[in-house]
């Protein structure tokens, strides 16, 4: 008998995780609220004089990203603890499933869920947006902003997964939110210190932290695109590489942590 591909167990865990999440009414409810808020963003255009399309894009995409962020953090951190509470680990681990396959499966499950949510909501938004602006610049801006947000969400899912291997779901969610806020604060902090004439060593420390901790501000390209500024190719390549490497690193460490756990 020819066995299926060695990655089959990880993929099976991923699809089971995705199905479990998508059938959970709580997740559906959050997505519905997100869609509603995104829809309301079209009304903001009417009250914003000649900046209508920009405001609609800004508020609409922000609503989409916040919804996806919430779902990513909530499902990733709770999914692992649910497996423990519901004794799913006793179902999984006596079978030929390694901890690495399990961790990868959990990450892929979260990834499928966040990708589905993000891209479906973006598609709905783009359809609505086409009623007010059919320019290529508008679509390109929505697509590029969402692509970078998608990479950021994958990285955040990796972070949430890592915290979920050693912390309770609420703590893991709080750690993830904390690091997400920190990850978006480096540029502000760097600018603030530069203005305050901060010491060389403090600036170097902040620079070093921006390298070690996830620098999520790299993925915020909305302002540049809304103001018609182009993104340099070398910068795009660097940011994509950063997202992939950092996410792989987080999932790898999560798998190592998972190996240490007794069921």
């Amino acid at each position: 008998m020819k066995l299926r591909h060695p990655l089959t167990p990880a993929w099976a865990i991923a699809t089971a995780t995705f199905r479990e999440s998508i059938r959970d009414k709580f997740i559906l409810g959050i997505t519905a609220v997100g869609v509603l808020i995104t829809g309301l963003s079209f009304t903001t255009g009417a009250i914003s004089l000649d900046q209508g399309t920009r405001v609609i894009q800004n508020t609409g995409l922000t609503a989409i990203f916040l919804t996806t962020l919430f779902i990513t953090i909530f499902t990733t951190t709770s999914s692992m603890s649910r497996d423990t509470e519901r004794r799913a680990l006793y179902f999984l681990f006596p079978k030929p499933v390694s901890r690495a396959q399990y961790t990868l499966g959990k990450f892929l499950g979260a990834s499928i869920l966040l990708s589905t949510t993000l891209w479906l909501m973006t598609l709905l938004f783009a359809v609505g947006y086409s009623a007010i602006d059919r320019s290529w610049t508008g679509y390109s801006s929505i697509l590029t902003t969402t692509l970078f947000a998608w990479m950021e969400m994958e990285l955040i899912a990796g972070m949430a997964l890592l915290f979920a291997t050693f912390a309770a779901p609420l703590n893991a969610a709080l750690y993830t939110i904390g690091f997400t806020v920190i990850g978006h604060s480096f540029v502000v902090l760097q600018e603030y210190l530069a203005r305050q004439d901060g010491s060389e060593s403090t600036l170097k420390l902040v620079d070093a932290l921006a390298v070690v901790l996830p620098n999520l501000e790299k993925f915020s390209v909305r302002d540049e695109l809304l103001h018609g500024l182009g993104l340099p190719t070398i910068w795009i390549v660097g940011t994509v590489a950063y997202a992939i490497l950092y996410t792989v690193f987080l999932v790898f460490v999560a798998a190592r942590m998972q190996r240490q756990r007794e069921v």
Partner: protein
Amino acid sequence: MDALLTVTNLHKRFGTQAAVESISLHVAAGDVLGIIGPNGAGKTTTIKMILGLLEPTSGTIELLGGSSNDASVRNQVGYMPESPTFYPYLTGQEVLDLAGALFRLPKDVVAKRSKELLETVGLADAANRQLRGYSKGMLQRICLAQALINKPAVVFLDEPLDGLDPVGRIRMREIIIKLRSEGTAVVLNSHILSDVEQVSTHVLMLDKGTVKAFGKVSEVVPSGKTLEEVFMQTLGLIPEHAEHPKKKSR
């Protein structure tokens, strides 16, 4: 007959508390080993160590000629955990598909096998219902089905009769006896001693992590006595020569 499972001098401590002390046993093909004992006797801990879910403090475990951490060994093992709820939003069929995929079995094999198993455990009509709509007995049965998806050489059943109605218990006993006749080794934990006595070929009696009795059922239970009487006497709950209270009242 060659042993499929050999456990020698197994110990497990949680901090300063001894959960299992010096357990040794062996199980051959076609044996049904019933592990009995009061709550906290170390039954589930022993099974978890054998399956590699817990690390023993000391002692050796040889399962199917290797270690339970080897994928080749796990491919031939089935496990039905106690009180399963695992994936409430998956259907019974999806749970079996998932179990088959974890063993990397080809899709057509999983489809054929899961159809047979759903018939065997009486869940063919509920195959497309989500687990959250299942009763406790149905969860027990789907959990048994997933444990058998790979046609295991050794299957571990943790409280398989718990939560089943009389018909479900009879059916479960029949399945265990069928597995035994097919040469599958079965290790089961249960509090229902009459059922253990009916289906087991061997019995391991544990109390406070230590072995109180181990051997063939015919050796542990003298003729004219029941396993329940022997169990109560061994644990000092009724005097050695006293009659079981139930028998007296008859």
